[in-house]
């Protein structure tokens, strides 16, 4: 815990935020695909699920361009369903291609995360030694 904070403190705070937002942006589409693995969802519902995870979504509206893009890429497909309240809803569902893309990402992500963790822990260890 201490070590992690030490590493962060040495970075410019503004810069750290920018880097994280890019990381978030790059992984968000797979988070959407992952949520859809549990079954089809409509936009508002999907946004709610993602927003509940802290730090995942900054502006809810930015999810919609992503959903549109995922649809264009045929990673998701949509269908209209009647709702009990109000107008019909557009439901998003994972396609075969989407499932495959997600599976590839999950595998790659595990390797990537481990690699980053390994490096971060090494760096943290060094910092701690220097401080001593």
């Amino acid at each position, binding site marked *: 815990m201490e070590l992690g904070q030490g590493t962060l403190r040495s970075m410019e705070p503004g810069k750290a935020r920018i880097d994280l937002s890019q990381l978030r942006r790059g992984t968000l589409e797979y988070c959407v695909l992952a949520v859809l693995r549990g079954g089809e969802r409509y*936009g*508002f519902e999907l*946004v709610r699920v993602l*927003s509940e995870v802290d730090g995942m979504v*900054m*502006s*809810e*509206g*930015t999810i*919609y*361009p*992503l*959903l*549109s*893009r995922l*649809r*264009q890429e045929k990673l998701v497909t949509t269908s209209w369903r009647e709702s009990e*309240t*109000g*107008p019909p*809803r*557009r439901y998003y569902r994972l396609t075969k291609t989407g499932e495959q893309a997600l599976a590839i990402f999950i595998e790659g992500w595990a390797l990537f995360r481990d690699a980053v963790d390994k490096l971060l822990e090494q760096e943290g260890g060094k910092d701690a030694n220097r401080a001593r």
Partner: protein
Amino acid sequence: MQTVHADRLVDDYVKDLDSELRRLPDNRRREILEEVRQHISEARAALEAETEANVRTVLELLGDPAEIATEAKKRFGVVDKPGTPLLEIATVVLMIIPFVGWAVSTVLLWMSNLWTRRDKIIGTIGALAFLPVGAIGVASIRPEVQGPLAVEDAGPGIDASTVGSLVSDSPVDGDVGLLELWMIFIILAIPIATAIYLGMRLRALRQSGPAIP
């Protein structure tokens, strides 16, 4: 009264978003707009009380329309074009106009901040290629230039017919004409090729964003 006010907030928001999304393909823009509108109505339905402040919060959570549009442009690879590159187009067009065009083109070329340094050097060499090529040309055409000069220098001792037969008998005469044509062709062709190169680079650079110096 409250609802009317809230409706106006939502209308303004959607209108803003619509205008921010204008660079997107029509179907994508409609889709995003539809979904955001739907999101707002779902969020409003979920509110405990539809006060102006609550509706405002819904819109704040959605985010600035400009931010959503920026995200949409990034996701769909829509580049905000910095307007028509008039300076660069003038540079390319002037490059194919002999002499004055070449000179002005070279100046404009260096004023541009779109082309890279390498492009500018290539462009300059292309625009000013007529100098060395022309010099070589003049040097090889010299026998012909000297011809008429020789008439003046010939003095009273040699009559015109002798000089005339000397010039026409000269075996290089026909070759010089062909060489001259070649020189003119090369002098005109190099800037045209350069203009095509600069035009292609311009297109590539505008697609990939501004040049990194």
